[in-house]
């Protein structure tokens, strides 16, 4: 099951990025007109300075009643913030001679953002002040980019889809307990929809890149290449010569295996892992699949991933569980007493029979490669006749090929025969329309032809 979850994470991750991006774009369009209130930029310094800022502030905001624990936490945060500010000033002092205008501007902007943050945090410390919900976008009270997701989106921007983002990827990591720094975000922080906020208008964004794009509307100073540049990471940041302590995250849910108080605590690697873990494990599954109306998810990316494959899970067990792969279903049935394969009602249709053949002929290949799948699908229709004849089956490929060329038109996803088909199609279109396709690529033609 471990690997299965990993796969899931992987998929979620991929689609999550797309989804986030789309949502952020939407936000941007709406938020364009608000060009006042605060003047600040979200440069790379924020990442350093606001490490715990978001956490504390959200907590403060959300505190509905006077909570001494929260209070204490906030105070300690303030302390830390001031300390950081101190360090920053030291930094400025140290390299005052060689400071360029741009850099100065950057640092000033950072200082401004820190001060604003401090003010807002201090304000939240007053128990009587009932703040607006963090989910309300456009609130000018939270004009700071919250570091938590900032970091996450940064890794996202780096294109590291596969790097250390899975909840359970670090199972085999075995870091010695003291060798890393444990951070624990609070529930509200984890569930906040946006992590980057415009310091001027307060609009929230999921990614800092989108925020930077947004900031261009607030003045020419945000259009400089430096302002638009990707904020440097800690390693590349000048001055951070001391080796970084590895950061790991803890789930705020008491008793969870991912909670640092757990006996066999297993830390989460990134903020995104924290978010996905928390939503999947400790939240209601509020997203229902619009196709099957049975599967529910708490992470919207999971839903999207599911919806892509929903309906393709034709391998059904009597217990109601569906599987996209026949061997998985049979493994499930072998494991559980009393479960039996459920025969679909449309069994009488020939197409269903052909598709149910698919697994039997394709069961040899365990890799989930699309080309292979389409191959076995192709063989499905004539598997009946084929098996009765002797055929050369030295290897898997020859097995597939000996069955092949009949029914590609039935199932032409992912397999290469499609491209041949498209090539001819392309010529046909170009001759008919009198113009050549823009990209000339196979993909674009197939889009138009569809």
């Amino acid at each position, binding site marked *: 099951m471990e690997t299965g979850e990993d796969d899931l994470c992987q998929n979620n991750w991929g689609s999550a990025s797309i989804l986030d991006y789309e949502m952020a774009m939407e936000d941007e369009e709406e938020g364009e007109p608000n060009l006042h209130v605060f003047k600040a930029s979200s440069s790379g310094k924020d990442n350093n300075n606001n490490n715990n800022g978001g956490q504390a502030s959200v907590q403060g905001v959300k505190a509905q009643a006077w909570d001494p624990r929260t209070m204490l936490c906030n105070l300690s945060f303030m302390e830390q913030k001031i300390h950081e500010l101190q360090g920053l000033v030291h930094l400025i002092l140290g390299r005052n001679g060689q400071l360029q205008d741009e850099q100065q501007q950057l640092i000033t902007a950072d200082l401004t953002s820190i001060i604003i943050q401090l003010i807002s945090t201090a304000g939240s410390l007053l128990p009587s002040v009932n703040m607006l919900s963090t989910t309300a976008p456009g609130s000018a009270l939270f004009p700071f980019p919250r570091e938590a997701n900032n970091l996450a989106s940064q890794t996202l921007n780096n294109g590291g889809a596969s790097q250390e983002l899975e909840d359970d990827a670090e199972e085999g990591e075995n870091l010695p307990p003291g060798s890393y720094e444990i951070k624990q975000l609070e529930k509200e922080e984890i569930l906040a929809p946006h992590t980057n906020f415009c310091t001027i208008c307060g609009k929230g964004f999921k990614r800092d890149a989108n925020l930077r794009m947004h900031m261009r509307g607030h003045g020419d100073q945000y259009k400089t290449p430096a302002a638009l540049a990707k904020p440097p990471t800690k390693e590349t940041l000048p001055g951070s010569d001391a080796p970084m302590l590895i950061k790991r995250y803890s789930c705020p849910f008491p008793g969870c295996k991912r909670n640092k108080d757990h006996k066999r605590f297993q830390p989460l690697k990134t903020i995104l892992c924290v978010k996905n873990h928390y939503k999947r494990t400790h939240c209601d599954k509020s997203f229902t699949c619009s196709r099957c109306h049975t599967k529910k998810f708490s992470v919207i990316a999971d839903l999207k991933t599911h919806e892509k494959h929903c309906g393709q899970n034709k391998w059904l067990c009597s217990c109601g569980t569906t599987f996209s792969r026949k061997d998985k279903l049979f493994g499930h049935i072998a494991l559980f007493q009393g479960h039996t394969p459920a025969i679909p009602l449309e069994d009488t249709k020939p197409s269903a029979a052909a598709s149910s053949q698919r697994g*039997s002929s394709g069961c040899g290949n365990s890799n989930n490669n699309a080309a292979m799948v389409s191959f076995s699908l192709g063989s499905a229709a004539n598997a009946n006749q084929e098996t009765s004849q002797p055929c050369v089956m030295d290897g898997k490929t020859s097995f597939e090929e000996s069955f092949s060329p009949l029914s590609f038109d039935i199932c032409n996803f992912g397999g290469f025969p499609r491209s041949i088909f498209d090539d001819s199609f392309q010529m046909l279109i170009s001759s008919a329309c009198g113009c050549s396709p823009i990209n000339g690529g196979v993909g674009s033609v197939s889009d138009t032809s569809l």
Partner: protein
Amino acid sequence: MKKAKQIQHMISKPFDLLSEELVFIILDLVAQNPSDLKSFSLTCKWFYQVEARHRRSLKPLRAEYLPRILTRYRNTADLDLSFCPRVTDYALSVVGCLSGPTLRSVDLSRSFSFSAAGLLRLAVKCVSLVEIDLSNATEMRDAAAAVVAEAKSLERLKLGRCKKLTDMGIGCIAVGCRKLKRVSLKWCVGVGDLGVGLLAVKCKDIRSLDLSYLPITGKCLHDVLKLQHLEELLLQGCFGVDDDSLKSLTHHCNSLKNLDASSCQNLTQRGLTSLLSGAGCLERLDLAHSSSVISLDFASSLNKVSSALQSIRLDGCAVTCDGLKAIGTLCISLREVSLSKCVTVTDEGLSCLVMKLKDLRKLDITCCRKLTGVSITQVASSCPLLVSLKMESCSLVSRDAFWLIGHKCRLLEELDFTDNEIDDEGLKSISSCRSLSSLKLGICLNITDRGLSYIGMGCSNLRELDLYRSVGITDVGISSIAQGCCHLETINISYCKDITDKSLVSLSKCSMLQTFESRGCPHITCQGLAAIAVRCKRLSKLDLKKCPFINDSGLLTLAHFSQGLKQISVSETGVTDVGLVSLANIGCLQNIAAVNTRGLSPSGVAAALVGCGGLRKVKLHASLRSLLPSSLINHMEARGCSFLWKDYNNHNNSNTLQAELDPKYWKV
């Protein structure tokens, strides 16, 4: 006075004194001849009832009568519906309702037109159903298999040629029927590794598993060979089972006794070694038509199983002399060896093989054309216990060798000398094998009536005699056989051109006669046929093709007397519509062949087809296809009858028959 009356009453009904158990024991003995049992039940009402209570197994001819016969026979345990081509869901629900609790086995292997609904009735009502045969249900789908899974107590299941079944259906059966012991999935080409694997995981009691012609690989065999009680594993024609998929196989299936890996084209010595590695108690091994050469190396892979191996089949394999020698020295306990169609077998190879096999009982060297008298002499002298010897078309074997066979191997029961050089002296020596029951002397041109008379005198247990195209035989030889071999059940005198009605009259003494083939005997008439029909009550198969003097009167006699006839061929005879229609009187009739029978008109054929209710196969001339109404053909096909349309033309009837009878014409 009253007491005396009572005694008198009891004497008048003496069977009242017997308990039912005793009567049943008597009936067990009577039941050996079905017609006797029929006479018994017709004697009186009481006998009728006793017989109805006694009968356990039924083999009805028509599904329409099921309600009546099942009401009569309440204790039916075995129901064989293979004579009923059309078994509807209604019929199955009748079976379920009337004999639900007692029924233990149902055979639906040759029945069609039932669906999942009918099977469900059967599975639910027949709680003690142990065996079901659903072979040839080619339209059966997974839904029906899921229904079969409802029969929880099922132990024996046959699903041969259920081509539309997939892993899902087998999965249902595997989960539902946990007590399965014998399963046949032959030709279920939709079932793969997953289904078979699940079957092996779920049904731990499996004794016998037939996976022939399934698209499985070696993968599922890992699970299958973990079965504790597996005795028989048939993998005939499993092309997906190859060396690579068996590479990691390690098993200790000590219960395995019978392994059939014939026609596994991709299984070579390497895969076979791992397959045999754990099967230390293997007794029967079938490697017919395998792709590997049976060499010295190959024989070494038999090392693990050599101690217990009793039977080996290497039909159609490329066999080397060294390989046979090694097998002969390794597997001393061999009792059965089959080398049929191994064209490379030489005298030296066979001699080395049989040298140490003192226990050899059965030897098949059909079509090993290189063999001569040398190796046959060796076989005769080293294997005195030989029971069966099949050596069709070993035409280089000299006449002396046959004499030695009869002299040395006195226990022989089955002999196939088709197309050999055996002569009367050889037959004389063979006649000393008292227990001989099957003798095939087809195309033995050297034998005459004298040789047959020795057989007739010596082999009183003979049940099967084949004299196909043995043209030296006349009425004299046949009459001596008929006199001496009163148990004769099957005789073939096709193309023995000198046979006349006298032979048939003498053969009518053999009351056990079931199969009579006299194709191409030009002198046979209806008188001879009448003699057979009247006295051989068990006659079931009759081939009268190319007997020009057979006409309607012969068929009328048959229709009256041979009520057990199942198969008849009247092609190229003088039969007309009247004779064919009269065949409708025979209830059991299933196969009719009437090609090139000039006296037949389309309407006569149509009437005969409608009349014969139990027809399964009809062979007719292709020209009739357009002449018969298509609605009739559809009707027949719906009744479960299939048509074979032949369109060979017969220009000059008498000349071709003459040509066929001349050995120079047909023997190359």
